[in-house]
């Protein structure tokens, strides 16, 4: 019995420590900003020849996938519109530099 009570107490303590809605929103925002920065830095690296085009394509694919995952969460709608648009613009710019089809249309 004591073990069950201790286990229940430990579980409730852990569950109580789960992320708050603010934490989730902050994490979503950080993820979007991080991917925008990644895509922009990759664009710059591809432009100056520091990264091969094949790497740029992988970053476009990864960013599109991450954006898709984020868009499926409730936090996505609460993100500032300009930050979402900045990610889309960055992806589109890198895709167009690499001659890839517009990821927003595929």
């Amino acid at each position, binding site marked *: 019995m004591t073990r069950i009570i201790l286990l229940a107490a430990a579980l409730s303590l*852990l*569950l109580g*420590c*789960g*992320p708050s809605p603010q*934490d989730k929103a902050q*994490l979503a925002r*950080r*993820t979007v*900003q*991080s991917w925008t*920065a*990644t895509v*922009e*830095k*990759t664009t710059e*690296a591809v432009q*100056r*020849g*520091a*990264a*091969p085009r*094949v*790497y740029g*394509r*992988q*970053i476009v694919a*990864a960013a599109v996938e*991450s954006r898709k995952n984020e868009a499926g969460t409730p936090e996505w709608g609460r993100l500032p519109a300009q930050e979402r648009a900045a990610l889309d613009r960055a992806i589109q710019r890198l895709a167009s530099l690499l001659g890839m089809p517009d990821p927003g249309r595929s």
Partner: protein
Amino acid sequence: MSKLLKIALGIFTSIGGFLEVGAIATAAEAGASFRFQLIWAVVLGTICVIFLVEMSGRLAALSHHTIKDAMRERFGPRVFMLTLISDVLVNVLVLAAEIGGMSLALQLVTGIGFRWWALPTGLLTWLLLWKGSFGLIENGVSLLGMVALAFLVAAWKLHPDGHDVVAGLALTLPAERPVHYWFTAVSILGAVISPYLFYFYSSGAIEDHWGVDEIGVNRAVATVGMSFGCVLCIAVMIVAALVLQPAGIQPDRFEQLGLLLTGPLGRWGFYLFAATLLVSCLGAALELSLATAYSFAQGLGWNWGESVHPRDAARFSLTYTIMIAAATLLIVLGLDPLKLTLFSMALTSLTLPVVTFPFLVLMNDRDYCGELGNHWIGNAAVIVISLLASLIALVAIPLQLMGG
């Protein structure tokens, strides 16, 4: 071979063997998220691993026992099986992370998805073990691992602020994301204090027929080699802190780490990063597979030895074959290599006392080490660091899992 040459070769292999997917991923994650704030974790882990590696070499040189066969002999089958189960669970995950790391390195260069590379890289690992000798694995692959020095060059070119770097040696609490901070800290500790490293080292000492004469060489290799490895790991953290963090990049996929060296080293940096990831993961995958096979064989009394023909050590060879197949399968099934790496490193921290405490008992047993048993400083350092890593992991792993 002269002592000096032995020391030099040992140091090179230690440096090459120190960096692997866990050290690269956790150090980069730490640098990108917390700048230099987690340098203390790398240093703390290195202190512990220096003691453990030195002890494992000393045990082999003095008693002609590897850690595992001494454990089986001293504690009996129950304690041995407990450590074996813990090793196998952690090692399969870490091996999968290493195969994932190699596959990602090839993906970065070719654009072909990492899952397609899992089978060829798994096969390459197996083939090298099947056909290669212990010398090839110990020296060849580890020497190739010197390509990781690119991180040191990059860190130097980025001119980090010396005061900030030194300040990272002190434990400070983060301004935000405390759970992620502690999770990353235990992942670093797990990556640095990898038990397979000292199992492999003690088995290698037996394969190389070490005796009392090698104790000095062993001490020099463990201290200097691991310290250089630590410097390389800190270099990865510095590069991530100065390249990724100012841009606001907090990697949640391995692909993002491809940018680490493109800033300071240009296009060469991109290929050097991929080469470092590929070679260091290959070296770690070989050592991990062998370390697990050694554990089984030494504890269960099978024939073993990397230089022995597979036909003459069939169960030993079968063990690493199964390990590699299982780990490859995890990557083929699509486990995220970065998440797998961070999680398996944290899990390594959690299980550290299971591995280190029985080992310490052996090192204080006069039947095994005679007059050259452990000093209290070594005992205290390993006990405190292992317990600390395990306790933080116990709290941080569930919290990180719940927080995504």
